[in-house]
């Protein structure tokens, strides 16, 4: 559950989950929506995967992400969006 809170604490990751709510998207499509570098986006995707909030499927060179939220996680995402909660950033996040 800690990994879920960590994943939901970042606005970029929350926005990724919001985008995936519409339909699955490729890593390229998702990255194009944010003004951050690809490695940074890749790190965000890894956090979401570790928390088991998204499913990643590789086909050739394309990675497609699908949303994988329980009702509780969905509700937490909604709460996080409304109240914008943010955990204190860890050293790992600052790297």
């Amino acid at each position, binding site marked *: 559950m800690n990994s879920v809170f960590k994943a939901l604490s970042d606005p970029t990751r929350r926005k990724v989950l919001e985008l995936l709510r519409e*339909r*699955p*998207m490729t890593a390229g499509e998702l990255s194009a929506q944010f003004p951050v570098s690809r490695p940074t986006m890749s790190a965000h995707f890894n956090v979401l995967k570790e928390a088991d909030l998204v499913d990643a499927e590789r086909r050739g060179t394309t990675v497609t992400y*699908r949303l994988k939220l*329980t*009702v*509780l996680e969905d509700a937490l995402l909604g709460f996080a969006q409304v109240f914008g909660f943010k955990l204190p950033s860890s050293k790992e996040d600052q790297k």
Partner: protein
Amino acid sequence: MTFNRIAASATGATVLISLAALGKLGAHLGVIDADMASRLIQIAIGLTLVVFANGAPKQIGRPRASFEAEGRAQAARRIAGWSLTIAGLIYAGVWVIAPVALAAPFSIAVVATGLTVTVLCAWNACRSRSADLAG
């Protein structure tokens, strides 16, 4: 993964059956009244529905043919999960507070509504897919 699901279901079933047996035994021994025993098992059934409905949207299965089909299936799973979770919470809540005569029909109506919403969403997702194939 499949083994985990079977184990979780078997554990859930065992807990429910044990609770029902304990309730019956408690009522027989006069520790609790028959109404309370019946309420306990109904509350457990409601909470079981909550647990399974909560996890339903996470069971995404294999990828669909297109992103649009996947989006529709995802929306259907999400609405089904929410409607059944809320139905389960109301079901359990009704059995906590309402008189038995009212709780029985009301709780059934709530779960039936949740199931109807789920079936309609699944049907709508399938119908949209048929329309896509025809178009």
